């Protein structure tokens, strides 16, 4: 597995606020990495640094290049959907295809057409005439037809209904993803992308708080559901977080002894959302 992105000590300050505070991580090829964090955690800043749109302190290499310095060379091999609805509203669908085909050497118009044929988007429409879901479909069709090594998605499904969101990720998985490609995605709707991710990267207040392949979660994290009378015993095992659910106490443990947990109650694999809450907010919620 080749390393596609390598960040070391990435730091970015805006005046008094520190958006990124010495962030280090690696992303290998063929992975789908979820970059997850609360609002203002530095996700977008990190993505902008990777895309070469913002300059950061520290060292950052994407496909072996310095993204800020070599942005023009990198742009052919890295695609991104930054936020939703950034397609200009005056643009006609056919013109969008023609333009990308004209300026992007790795774009395959026939693939884009094939994606669009499965939607109800008309070639003659302007973007302003399309629904939000259709605009996202169009953007995805344009981006998926680019033979890029890295695809960066920043809240690609924000504001879409659940059907459109599901369709978006389904297309991404079935039509785009293969061993040669890498996807880096941020979203608030973590539970919806849980099943497609291969890696998790939690970021909070400019720092990486979790960096783990999905496959390693069961080995390191466990969720325990216990009756109220066992809560004290569960607390003694030093959980990361605790909350109450339908009269039971729910604890989340890191690197805990499974046998000890099982003796107290029901042990489950935590969801990303549970893990996120425990890691980022220290179980305060």
């Amino acid at each position, binding site marked *: 597995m080749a390393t596609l992105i390598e960040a070391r000590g990435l730091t970015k300050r*805006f005046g008094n606020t520190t958006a990124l505070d010495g962030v280090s991580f690696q992303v290998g090829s063929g992975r789908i990495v979820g970059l997850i964090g609360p609002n203002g955690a530095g996700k*977008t*800043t990190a993505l*902008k640094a990777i*895309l070469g*749109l*913002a*300059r950061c302190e520290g060292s950052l290499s994407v496909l072996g290049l310095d993204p800020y310095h070599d*942005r*023009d060379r990198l*742009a*052919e091999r890295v*695609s*991104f*959907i*930054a*936020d939703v*609805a*950034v*397609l*200009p*509203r*005056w*643009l*006609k669908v056919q*013109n969008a295809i*023609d*333009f*990308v085909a*004209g*300026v*992007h*050497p790795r774009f395959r118009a026939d693939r884009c057409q094939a994606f669009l044929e499965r939607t109800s988007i008309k070639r003659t429409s302007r973007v302003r005439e399309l629904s939000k879901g259709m605009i996202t479909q169009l*953007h995805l069709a344009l*981006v998926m037809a680019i033979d890029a090594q890295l695809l960066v998605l920043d809240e690609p499904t924000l504001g879409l209904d659940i059907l459109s969101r599901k369709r978006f990720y389904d297309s991404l998985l079935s039509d785009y993803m293969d061993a040669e490609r890498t996807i880096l995605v941020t979203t608030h709707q973590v539970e919806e992308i849980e099943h497609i991710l291969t890696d998790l990267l939690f970021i909070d207040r400019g720092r990486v708080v979790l960096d783990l392949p999905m496959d390693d979660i069961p080995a390191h994290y466990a969720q325990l559901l216990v009756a109220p009378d066992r809560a004290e015993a569960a607390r003694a095992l030093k959980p990361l977080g605790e909350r109450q659910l339908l009269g039971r106490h729910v604890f989340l443990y890191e690197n805990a002894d499974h046998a000890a947990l099982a003796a107290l109650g029901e042990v489950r694999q935590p969801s990303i959302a549970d893990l996120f809450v425990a890691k980022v907010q220290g179980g305060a919620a």
Partner: protein
Amino acid sequence: MNNKFLWLVRRELWESRSAWLAPLAVGGVWVASVLLGVINGSIAINGLSPAHLARLHERLTPDNLDGIASLALTFIGATFLVLVAATQFFYAIDSLYGERRDRSVLFWKSMPVSDRETVLSKFVFATLVMPVVAALVALATQVVVFAILSPRVAAIDGVLPHLWSPAVWGGSLLLTAYGILVFALWYLPLVGWYLLVSAWVPRSPLMFATLPPLALMLAERIVFGTHYTTAVVMGRLMTLGPAFGGRHDGTDVGLVIDNEHLQIPRTLVDAMRPLHFLGSPEVWAGVVLGVALVVAAIYVRRTRDEAA
């Protein structure tokens, strides 16, 4: 690379339809009003109605007639020039601001197109494509207007050939080509300024483009009691500088007929001063400033952090 640039310029044509819609509208107004004038017989060329011409034409030399035809063409062409100055302003002022306002800059930046290529495509669009498109529509308008006038003019013996004289039309084309060159060079600092403001300001680029020069002019007047900035800015905006010479508008043949004093224009082609213009430090100082402003606009678009 070249092909890519062509796509960028085409992109501007898709977005800024006013580049060709506005000239078409002006051409339409010309054709409609001339058509109307011919129908109710009130048409006049530079104040000379066909009836006028019929009375005068034996007193006019062939040069005079050529001059009248030339000035009619120039007059039509000049309305397009004024139009381009306006559409160019509104285009350039919005070109790099509009993409930030609707956030489409994030889409354009996801394409393998450098900031230099993007800004240059907008610069070339404003300084060359818009004037050339307007000039083509102007030419079509001139042809149609003269075609509409031809039947009326044909009634006057010997005038029609002047309307379609190769010398008249050749001169007009030469004037147009020169006008595009002058326009591009003379207004280069203005376009550069519009682009920089458009790339830079957080909001209201229109205000930011106009207020600082106005404030500067006012400040100079109040503090020093002088008007140098006003002279420079107004000279740039309101005139074409050293592009034309001789009598200021090329009207130099006075003629008195039937107690009427007529200025029969000599063609503006004679007033062109290409060598004087291209040798003028005023022009090249503007070009240098304009290029610096465009480079600054590229830098601002490149380094501007969209997250901030």
